[in-house]
């Protein structure tokens, strides 16, 4: 099962290496990992998607919490939250397909961010399932390139019970 873990970490060199190294050393699998600064410049937020049963993910959570430069760890599983991926995708787009693709983009509430004579670059944001669906829908036209951020997530109003310790 996929778990989304959110970790508030000190914005210091070596923290990302520590997290990545710990996952590798303990044979945990990272599905995706997104890092960015928070409103407080001394802190960063890591959103890590991990695949594993509850027991594995419990260990992941505890091992993360043990790292001195990690301030707080939350597991969002079973909690109401908003999870989003951002994707940039370049799709082949010959003149005769342009209208079709444009309709698709509108359907997914996506946005054209660049255009060339033979292709379009589209920005899509949303839950992972929507991103996957958009990729599938684009396949018949020919996908040239895909870049995804990995999931970022935030709990909705109210606290998560799995909040660290």
């Amino acid at each position, binding site marked *: 099962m996929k778990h989304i873990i959110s970790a508030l*970490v*000190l914005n210091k060199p*070596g923290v990302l*290496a*520590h997290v990545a*190294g*710990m996952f590798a*050393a303990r044979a945990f699998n990272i599905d995706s990992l997104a890092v960015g600064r928070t409103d407080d410049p001394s802190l960063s937020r890591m959103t890590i998607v991990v695949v594993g049963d509850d*027991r594995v993910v*419990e*260990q992941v959570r*505890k*091992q993360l*919490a*043990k*790292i*001195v*430069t*990690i*301030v*707080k760890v939350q597991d969002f599983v079973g909690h109401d939250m908003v999870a989003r991926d951002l994707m940039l995708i370049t799709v082949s787009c010959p003149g005769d397909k342009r209208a079709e693709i444009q309709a698709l983009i509108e359907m997914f509430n996506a946005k054209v961010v660049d255009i060339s004579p033979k292709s379009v670059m589209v920005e899509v944001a949303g839950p992972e399932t929507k991103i996957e669906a958009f990729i599938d829908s684009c396949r018949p036209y020919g996908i040239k390139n895909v870049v995804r951020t990995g999931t970022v997530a935030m709990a909705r109003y109210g606290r998560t019970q799995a909040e660290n*310790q």
Partner: protein
Amino acid sequence: MSNKTSETVTDRPQRKPGSQIIVDTLIEQGADVIFGYLGGVVLPLFDKLYDAPIKFIIPRHEQGGCHMADAYARATGKVGVVIATSGPGATNLTTGLANAMMDSVPIVAITGQVRTDLIGNDAFQEADTTGITRPITKHNEIVKDPSLLAQTIREAFYIASTGRPGPVLIDIPVDMQTTEIEVEPPTKIRLPGYRIREQGHARQISAAAQAINDAQRPVLYIGGGVIAANAAEELRSVAKKANVPVTMTLMGLGSLDQNDPLSLDMLGMHGTAYANYAVQECDLLIAVGSRFDDRVTGKLKTFAPHAKIIHIDVDPASISKNVRVDIPVVGSAKYILTEMEKELVHRDRTEWFKRINDWKKRHPLRYDTNAGTIKPQYVIEEIYRQTHGDAVVVTGVGQHQMWTAQFYKFKRPRQFITSGGLGTMGFGLPAAIGAQIACPNEIVIDIDGDSSFNMTMNELCTAVQYELPVKVCLINNNFMGMVRQWQHLFYGQRYSCSSLQNPDFAKVAEAFGAVGFTVKDKAQVPDAVKKMLAEKRPCVVDFHVDKEENVWPMVASGKSLHEMDGLDIFEMA
């Protein structure tokens, strides 16, 4: 210097080079002994150590220095301090750091680093020390701002010694040592990502106490955490009050006097039959400061199959890592055992102790006492007898280590110093040196294997230089004994690469300036031990023991704890 000048100096904030600040902060943190080796980028630091009121011990290899600091910490309960230079100095520390990490030993390691403007340029003796040591330290940090030196060192001592202890490394570029900065008063330690829960949850403690009161066949399973928490006295009170037998891991030996009738001695792969049977038959297993290591549990699926499990540990990540725990209690063993004891009641458990005593009677640890050869166990028993069980005992890793754990009955915590988790061959001699410095008035004996000793015996030089009366008692079977035992049992006696050409260890000792003698005859063992104990200089006694003796009992890898081999071996003899 005139009075006037000194007044002006005190008026303005004092300025000192970083190297002096490092030394001052080490002294402030209570470092009275430091182990370490010089090198280019720690020269400014060593220059300041020259005048410092710190005893400095120079090993012959940084690994030795790290093991010395490790054993010093284990013997005293204080933080061990080790210094090494950049590059190879730092990489040589890694075995020692990993060893301390696995056994939760508080160490502060300081490494020099190339100048900050050279970092990343493949400079001479440059290595990514924080990168290399990240998985084998509790925490590490590179200091790139000299004003953070003092605070970083204070935090290192705090992190190393609190919670589940462990090694912390500080990497200090040479320019941080030479820059002059203003001395700031200490500020409060602020580590937002580091929280320790000392006091367990009151409801969990009550639940644990209730479970113990209700249990018919409980067993306390004690690890090194009890020793690290200085909770041996509290453990004894709990065991006595609730009347619960106690088995200890290799790291836990000494937390309860093994002469106590409640002691089941060591459990696990080479544990006693009565400890392993008791664990397999118990209805409640109370783990304190232990971590369900594979050498302890054997096959996990069938480990303590009838038991409800209580796990008391200061490290939440240890709980439910290997086994499912019914009553987890996160906190310091000292605090939790104290609180728990208040709620415990005495139970007779006559039936349970009858069974245990029956196992004890039927399966004591034994070996062939009538053999004509020197049996390793006999040497260890003789050392035990002549030291009245009071010596500080250190070991290498392998058969001799297991025999020591089996045949030396430890009385008190911090008496047995051994490499448990990492299993570091070569730990023995440097650790004995660290322990002897920690306990100048104790007899310190390194019961070592020939192969283990071969790895770090250059530290004899250190023992001679500092006039340390460490005793090395070699259980010399001319094999990597434990490897040979596995080849004997599981590889059809094909002794691939496990037999070594040894030097004449007695002559080696003499060449180093120590005392050395060889014992080949069983009848000479008592006198040799007596001579060794009386010796005031470092001393190596090379006991040529039975080459193919095996450690019994043994739970083969992947077997359940009760499936021990070797229980009947001496009954046939």
